[in-house]
């Protein structure tokens, strides 16, 4: 199983990625907070000033609506992208030394999880300023959703990180898919703004459903999409089990195919 060294290696990888991301910039670690905050501010100012009121949401509600959409979508985007690139990025190491390759994948996803945690903190801060009443159950539910997404993306990364070695186009394809998902998940506009016949796109889109659950928990202190979240949890665990097997088998040949 996992040795002491494996755990230390995992910590080293996460630390290194974290340090490298903000190395050399003057504000350094602050960017972790500033980037999502300004992203939020831009979308908020653009949408609430263009239309005055967004759908039937008050601007306070819209702020929370937008924040939760952004945070969940960002988690998804980073988890998928970093998981996809994880093995490729460590090619130099993988051809030189034999260590548990899974550590590379899990550290990439951990990075996304850390960012997600930080972004939740931002929701907490902005939400408090705006006078949102957080419920304990709601917070617990949001954390559960984070865990489910993490597990699901970890399972997906077992496949995509390997495929990426053979088909480099995946990086570009994934970028487009993620862009599409951004619009198909109603991150920054109310679902009602979509014509009725297309609303199914949002209603059957897992990311949109996660976002919706988080929004309800924050705005109306309401727990919804429970069945979907639990089903996702189950599927994620199955995906990890199958993915792990697939990964173990395919990783043997990866070093000679970079």
């Amino acid at each position: 199983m996992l040795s002491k060294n494996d755990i230390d290696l995992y910590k080293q990888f996460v630390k290194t990625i974290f340090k490298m991301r903000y190395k050399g910039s003057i504000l350094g670690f602050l960017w972790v907070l500033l980037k999502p905050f300004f992203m939020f501010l831009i979308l908020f100012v653009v949408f609430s000033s263009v239309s005055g009121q967004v759908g039937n949401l008050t601007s306070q509600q819209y702020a929370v609506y937008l924040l939760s959409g952004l945070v969940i979508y960002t988690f998804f985007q980073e988890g998928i992208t970093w998981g996809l690139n994880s093995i490729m990025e460590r090619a130099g190491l993988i051809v030189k030394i034999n260590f548990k390759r899974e550590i590379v994948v899990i550290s990439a996803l951990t990075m996304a999880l850390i960012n997600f945690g930080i972004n939740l903190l931002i929701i907490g801060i902005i939400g408090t300023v705006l006078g949102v009443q957080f419920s304990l159950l709601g917070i617990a539910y949001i954390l559960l959703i984070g865990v489910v997404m993490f597990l699901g993306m970890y399972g997906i990364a077992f496949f995509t990180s390997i495929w990426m070695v053979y088909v480099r186009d995946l990086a570009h394809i994934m970028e487009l898919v993620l862009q599409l998902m951004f619009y198909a998940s109603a991150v920054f506009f109310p679902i009602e703004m979509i014509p009725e016949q297309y609303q199914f796109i949002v209603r059957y889109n897992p990311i949109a459903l996660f976002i919706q659950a988080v929004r309800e928990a924050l705005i109306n202190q309401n727990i919804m999409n429970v069945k979907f979240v639990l089903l996702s949890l189950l599927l994620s665990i199955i995906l990890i089990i199958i993915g792990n097997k697939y990964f173990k088998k395919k990783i043997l040949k990866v070093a000679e195919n970079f």
Partner: protein
Amino acid sequence: MEKDIAIQVKNVTKEFKVPVKGNKNTLQERFLNPFQKTHYREFIALKNLSFDVKKGEFFSVIGPNGVGKSTLLKIVSGIYVPDEGSVEVNGNLVPFLELGVGFNPELSARENVYLNGTILGLTKKELDKYIDEIFDFAELRDFADMSIKNFSSGMAVRLAFSIAIRVKSDILVLDEVLAVGDAEFQKKCYAYFDSIKGTKSILYVSHALSSVSRYSDRVLWLKEDRTYEIGDPAEILEKYKGSL
């Protein structure tokens, strides 16, 4: 496998498929030529190779470029899998196909000691214990907090070597990394190998025939026609030099 054997290589064959025209790693070529099968040239790196490295033995591999020496080391190190045959390793094997794997130029020397040391199998606790000795051996104590990118290549390699000798291993796999740095530091490297001779099993690939003859107990000569000879260093080296 017998108890006194550290590495057992049995009938190992490794072939690589090299795409003849370009690399079909992108979909573009597959789209443009949907019916054209990718043509591969088969390149046999190793063919039916068998040998043992005994415990405590210094075993060297020599041969011209492209005879599969590095491939062999990668197979023994578990980075490649052989197409046929098997490799068995008895003990804790650490490969040094390059010194300073995972070194990150942006990070400080100290951070890199932890990164590289952990990659080589040390725990954080052990590195906490060794870190001073590592910098002392490398003679880089005053540079511990400097970025590696500001190091000369000699300094970086000295640091890497000093970490490497701390790694717990019964078996070392070395690709041209016996003595590094300036003449002064190379003496320290040789002294280190003199001191461990007989206690660790070493599989060593090199073109530096002088160090091969100085340390080896036996030598494996890989030839271009994929045959090989194993034997006493003096005898094999003489034949090898004669073939050049």
